[in-house]
């Protein structure tokens, strides 16, 4: 037993040595992991989209339309930059991307408002090249409209002979307050960066393990004993647990990303998360023959993992087949768990589903890794391994010039 643990220890030390002596792995493990969050924070620095330029086509040219525009321009979301005499002119501006929206008042706008039975119409054209333009333009315009609509309604009810007090009560009968919970600024960065942080841990660790596995195979140093599986896992786990603590514990506090959860709960959630990613990656790395092959997996899976987890595209909208598949990816549970605790202040107990799912994946992938390593070990001892010769020993393609 003592010998066994010594062997595990030696596999652990050996793997640490390989990691720290391999500049490529160090770049991925340390530099990319720490640089990427900073880059993303810089990218999404301004949380809100403000002052989206909008063109005005006001054919009614009435005090009412001017009042409306005045109120709308006062909202932070948009800025009325151009006044056009025709739709044609405004469309030209939209086409040239000088504005991202057009507001159009028809000629009979004021007349319809004055008519107690009339309905005045405003047309709003939104640039759909980014969803956030539409959100800024449409929601702010809607707000101004609801506000001015109340005044018109009161006027109309008064004309009908109701007293003002009653008319006011009638249009305001169900006032409401709206509260955005958890991330007060409601910005894009506050929402995306927590999900990206968890993804960075997943993908750099995944890629790094594949790279180390591929290198070992190229050099003929691959070890498939269970001892080496455990020793290597401990090495990856220790490095990444520290990185997870920095990225998920301190980074949000340092850079003003929402962090209302208990740091202890986050650290507890990260134990099964990092372990699940380690064993998941070790399973995949068995099939990697070259140092660089893992890269293909990295570039093809990053966006798919992000979308499949149901973060930027709500999980309720994802077809069941993809949804079930996503349950086998540690990222899905890690990201939701982290967002629930960190951004929404849930406790670990409230996040138990994600937490236990991650332990489930840890046990499952550990078992699969053991089986894969066992099979590989037998094959290797048979001498039927299919590894390619080391590059320096391959002189056949080398010709002098």
């Amino acid at each position, binding site marked *: 037993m003592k010998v066994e643990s010594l062997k595990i220890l030696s596999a652990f030390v050996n793997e640490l040595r390989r990691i720290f002596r391999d*500049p*490529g792995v160090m*770049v991925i493990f340390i530099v*990319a992991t720490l*640089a*990427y969050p900073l*880059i993303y924070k*810089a*990218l999404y*620095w*301004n949380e809100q*989209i*403000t002052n989206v330029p909008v063109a005005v086509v006001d054919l009614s040219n009435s005090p009412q339309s001017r009042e409306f525009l005045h109120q709308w321009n006062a909202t932070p979301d948009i800025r009325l930059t151009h006044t056009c005499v025709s739709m044609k002119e405004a469309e030209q501006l939209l*086409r040239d*991307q000088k504005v991202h929206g057009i507001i159009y008042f028809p000629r009979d706008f004021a007349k319809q408002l004055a008519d*107690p*039975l*009339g*309905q005045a*119409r*405003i047309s*709003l054209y*939104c*640039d*759909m*090249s*980014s*969803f*956030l333009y539409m959100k800024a333009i449409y929601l702010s315009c809607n707000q101004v409209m609801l506000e001015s609509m109340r005044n*018109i*309604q009161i006027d109309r009810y008064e004309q009908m002979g109701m007293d003002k007090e009653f008319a006011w*009560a009638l249009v305001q*009968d*169900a*006032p*409401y307050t*709206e509260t*955005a*919970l*958890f*991330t007060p600024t*409601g910005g894009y960065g506050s*929402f*995306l960066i927590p999900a990206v942080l968890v993804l960075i841990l997943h993908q750099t660790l995944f890629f790094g393990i594949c790279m180390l596995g591929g290198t070992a195979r190229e050099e003929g140093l691959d070890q498939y004993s269970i001892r080496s599986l455990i020793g290597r896992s401990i090495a990856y786990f220790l490095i990444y647990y520290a990185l997870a603590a920095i990225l998920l514990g301190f980074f949000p506090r340092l850079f003003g990303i929402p962090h209302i959860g208990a740091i202890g709960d986050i650290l507890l959630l990260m134990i099964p998360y990092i372990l699940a990613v380690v064993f998941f990656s070790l399973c995949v790395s068995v099939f990697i023959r*070259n140092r*660089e092959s893992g890269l*293909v997996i*990295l570039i*093809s899976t990053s*966006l798919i993992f992000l979308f499949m987890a149901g973060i930027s*595209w709500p999980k*309720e909208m994802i077809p069941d*087949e*993809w949804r079930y598949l996503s349950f086998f990816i540690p990222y899905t549970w890690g990201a939701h768990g982290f967002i*629930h605790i960190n951004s929404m202040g*849930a406790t670990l107990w409230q996040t138990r589903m994600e937490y236990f799912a991650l332990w489930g994946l840890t046990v499952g992938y550990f078992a699969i890794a053991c089986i894969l390593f066992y099979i590989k070990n037998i094959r290797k001892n048979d001498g039927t391994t299919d590894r390619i010769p080391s*590059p320096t020993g391959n002189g056949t*393609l*080398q010709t002098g*010039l």
Partner: protein
Amino acid sequence: MKYIFINIWRVMQRELKMMFARPLYLFASVGVMLLSTFFFLTLMQGGSAEKMPVAVVDLDQTSISRRLIHEMQATPSVDIQLITNSYPEAREAMQQGKIYGIFVIPECFYDELVSFKRPKMDFYVTNAYTVGGNTAYKQMLTMVNLTSGAFQREVLRKKGLPDDVIMHRIQPLAIEGHMVANPWGNYSVYLVSTILPGILGLICLMLTIFAIGFELKMRTSHAWLKAAGGNYTVAMIGKLIPYTLIYIILGIGCHIILYRFAGFPVYGSHTRLMFGLLLFIFAMEALGITLIGLLPTLRDALSIGALYSMLGFSLSGFTYPQMAMLPPVKALSYLEPLRHYYLIYVNEALMAAPVENSIPHMLALTGFMLASLFVAPRLYDALVYQNYPLK
């Protein structure tokens, strides 16, 4: 002149052999592209998020509050998953990601309503999930309007007014929303139209780095140059032709799938959009040559290439608009070929803009190709002297 073509052919033959000897190349290009196309088109079949699960907290618990909830449940754009009389319970459901919004009917709702006071509704939406939260927000407004509208209607009906007259009194002002070039507000149109070409570009960049860098790593660059008769240009052209053909086919295939089969709109010119895509592919290949030329070690070039091109998805500005970025980040975004392709896409597919609007971006993409020529001496030296580390 004749020798040049023969040499190009020889390099191509050598390359094809290497390509088919390693499944990585075809898997990384064709396989990844097929998988991504299939994934993103099936993922967003619905296209737009219409309703999200929300909770109603009924603190009033009277017949009128229950009737209101009933009415809300009958509205197709509202999806009530949880009805409870405890706010903490609803909040916990939100923290567990089960619901995206909470609608609170206050305790005194019935009493205030019958005495013509103004009962106040509260609603809460989560911002931790952007799309889900926004959709829930719209849904909440619908629910408030339902409450408000139903009440006004009842009062006016009692006054003996016909329904159509009531309608205009309740809604004297209306906004007609027009979503230019995407009238359905379809999320997948603007997302997939940039993501798929972006993934193709990523493949072009990485495989170009790989194809050249692998010769350096395996110390086979002499054989490569020998096949090319010692000519750098011939060596490059011969090597890249087979890959470029694959990328062109993938690019055209992607275009046909998106704009013919998936039915995404193109209001401008198909030809120019496709031309833009091809320029983008060439620009990404050229960027690959530039990177492996600057860093003639496979490992370094691949890492930097992956970092650079993954950032392209964010920097291109198709989710988070470029106008909101900080000035230095904004400047950086022009160094991403995907930014230029995205703008060509906006001009051609969505805006049907005149060709002058796209030309600057086509020129910028051409600029990436020209830039790769500057690393030629450095890369040639690396191929001849093999003086960079292996790993």
